[in-house]
């Protein structure tokens, strides 16, 4: 593949791909996300191909896409252009799908999604409540592209936003547009991305770095990896636009080594982009020089914290340090560095192609755009969901997620992972909005875990603390020693040996952690505890006073009467 030297050459290549594909409208999208991967979708795609061949069907393609989102029903296969949605497809179902649906346009009833309440079968993807309630924009193209094919990305107009930016905009205009879009950092803290970009652009240096944080270590969060796995070129395009705006020359994608599929897809995408001249020197003849490298981290949770992340990348121990200047002045290797979450980067091509005016029509007053969550726990329909900011958590859990499994009673939804908190039934109407969550003492993390009456809040808090005690760096006293003592106390409580004085001790440690810990991990280490005590204090008291676990999870000593 000769390198593409100019934008017109890229457009020519794109036109060629589209012309070649103009007849190919029929395809079967087989989900290749991590969830479906674990259910052997590799084999499924192969069997589909064999079956098509056997039946002499030549006008239908197989596309192994990234995550299609509906993980609960995986492996998923969608027949396009009709959008017929088949759930839990096994190798045995493939011949039937091919002979019935592909060859004869007949729907295989038993593989369709079944609405639990009404019992009716739903044929099309967009009519399923799980998809109906969503606004899929950053993950909208997942069903149209094979993540390992740059041609697929070009065919849907990929790198078009970059071309427009290179042709029509100055770096200042790009930053003005991002600022106007008021996009806020998707890591959860909600810092204005445009302001960060501006600071990085203004910093004077020979080398500037931009980093895409795809670390995502929260238990119960699996969004970032799925997004980049499904559409890696979208992230590269976002980073390229960022590089142009901030005059950065090197980019890193920071990813944990526990995500092998993610690493493979990113590396393939980078290689393809380099071969096409979309990364490297003088990109598309514009004079922009930018390379992207993957940094594979050992997988320590605290390395998601920005100073620890950069320490780890520099080859030092991944520990947070006290810093009094911004990374946009002195970041990685002391150079100006812009660090954004993967979801933030995913929004950039969208903003630049559709414009800030369009972007700001979505969302609430101070939180614009959409938010992608991983919905899991005891919800009926788990998976990846993208909703516009302002959507209520009730809608996410009860409409998109179809409520709680097995007719059990909803208890809470956990948001923000180990440093997050619980949203109980009474607060479910809270909208997805950075400020609303901050007001309630929560952070807008990417993972939503639905819990019901059969889950014990005390045990869950104990679990998160144990997770953090293993994943913290152990540098500062309040975090390390605080967690050590809190876990001892929690262990006593779940065994029915706790006292009411223990609750006071827990609260005392939590107060000190919040005010005196070194980094965000330490400061947030007791967030789940505080939230649980605020909303479910009675459950703690039942463990302590009545030696009973209301959910029936914790093993309590037999009560001698």
């Amino acid at each position: 593949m000769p390198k593409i030297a100019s934008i017109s050459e890229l457009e020519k290549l794109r036109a060629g791909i589209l012309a070649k594909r103009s007849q190919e409208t029929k395809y079967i999208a087989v989900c290749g996300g991590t969830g479906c991967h674990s259910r052997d979708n590799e084999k499924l795609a192969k069997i589909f191909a064999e079956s098509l061949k056997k039946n002499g069907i030549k006008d239908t393609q197989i596309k192994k896409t990234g995550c299609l989102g509906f993980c609960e029903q995986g492996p998923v296969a969608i027949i396009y252009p009709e959008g017929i949605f088949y759930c839990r497809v096994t190798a045995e179902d493939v011949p039937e799908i091919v002979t019935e649906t592909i060859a004869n346009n007949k729907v295989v009833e038993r593989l369709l999604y079944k609405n639990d309440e009404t019992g009716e079968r739903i044929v099309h993807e967009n009519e399923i409540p799980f998809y109906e309630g969503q606004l899929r924009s950053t993950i909208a193209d997942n069903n149209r592209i094979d993540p390992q094919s740059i041609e697929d990305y070009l065919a849907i107009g990929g790198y078009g936003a970059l071309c427009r930016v290179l042709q029509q905009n100055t770096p200042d205009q790009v930053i003005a547009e991002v600022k106007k879009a008021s996009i806020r950092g998707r890591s959860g803290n909600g810092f204005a991305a445009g302001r960060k970009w501006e600071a990085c652009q203004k910093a004077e240096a020979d080398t500037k770095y931009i980093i895409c944080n795809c670390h995502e270590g929260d238990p119960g969060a699996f969004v970032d990896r799925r997004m980049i796995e499904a559409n890696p070129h979208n992230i590269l395009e976002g980073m390229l636009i960022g590089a142009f705006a901030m005059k950065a020359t090197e980019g890193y994608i920071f990813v944990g080594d526990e995500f092998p599929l993610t690493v493979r897809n990113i590396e393939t995408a980078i290689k393809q982009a380099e071969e096409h001249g979309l990364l490297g020197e003088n990109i598309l003849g514009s004079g922009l020089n930018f390379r992207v490298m993957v940094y594979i981290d050992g997988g320590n949770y605290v390395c998601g914290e920005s100073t620890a992340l950069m320490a780890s990348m520099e080859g030092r121990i991944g520990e947070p340090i006290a810093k009094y200047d911004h990374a946009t002045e002195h970041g990685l290797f002391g150079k100006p560095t812009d660090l954004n979450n993967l979801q933030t980067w995913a929004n950039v091509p969208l903003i630049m192609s559709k414009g800030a005016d369009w972007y700001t029509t979505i969302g609430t007053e101070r939180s614009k755009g959409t938010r992608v969550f991983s919905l899991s726990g005891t919800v009926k329909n788990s998976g990846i969901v993208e909703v516009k900011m302002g959507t209520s958590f009730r809608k996410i859990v009860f409409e998109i997620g179809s409520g709680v499994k097995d007719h059990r009673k909803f208890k809470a939804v956990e948001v923000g992972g180990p440093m997050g908190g619980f949203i109980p039934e009474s607060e479910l109407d809270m909208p997805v909005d950075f400020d609303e969550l901050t007001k309630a003492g929560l952070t807008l993390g990417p993972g939503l875990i639905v819990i019901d009456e059969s889950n014990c809040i005390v045990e869950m808090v104990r679990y998160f603390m144990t997770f953090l005690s293993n994943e913290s760096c152990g540098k500062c006293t309040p975090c390390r020693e605080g967690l050590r003592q809190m876990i001892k106390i929690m262990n006593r409580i779940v065994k029915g040996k706790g006292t009411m004085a223990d609750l006071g001790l827990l609260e005392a440690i939590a107060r000190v952690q919040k005010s005196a810990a070194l980094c965000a991990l330490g400061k947030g280490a007791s967030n789940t505890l505080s939230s649980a005590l605020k909303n479910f204090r009675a459950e703690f008291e039942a463990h302590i006073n009545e030696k009973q676990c209301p959910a029936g999870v914790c093993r309590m000593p037999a009560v001698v009467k």
Partner: protein
Amino acid sequence: MSEITLKIDGKEVKANEGMTIFDAAESAGINIPTLCHHEKLQPYTACRICTVEIEERGRTNLDTACSCPVENGMIVRTRSPNIDNIRKTLLELMLSHAPDAPLIVDLAKEYGADKDRFEKEPMFCILCGLCVRYCNEVKQKHVITFVDRGTNREIAFIPELAAKECWDCKECFPLCPTEYAQATYMLTRALIGDEKQ
């Protein structure tokens, strides 16, 4: 270097740009307790005992005096009910490891920390890191290191290096607030011996 003025505990203090709050307070004779701080070492901000209240541009926040650079017009409070409570709890957490370490016992008396508030721990290290950092930064021998992370974190002497370097140095022993460094070295030596002896 330009001179700036800040207020520490109500007292006007002159300081140079680039100084930390701890340096400025020390020069004015104001005592801020520290455990992991050492003048020859980079700020480490791990023990958090030197946490102070800082009022700046109308906002009050907490930070460690050993690392926070001074700024003109800054108002610093080294004692307040909140600060005292933080120090008390931190000391109580440390006392679960080192209930008899003189430095910590003295501070505990001042802040009313109860050595029995939390369950006792068998390891008497408070992980101030003075030994590790002194060996790395000042002696540049890299004999002592941190091992593992989170609540499993501990210090260790690398036996091969310890056998060569430690006998003639031992400069980390007096730095240790709990004598754990010495104990760890002795254990290492008992296990592998010493080349100098």
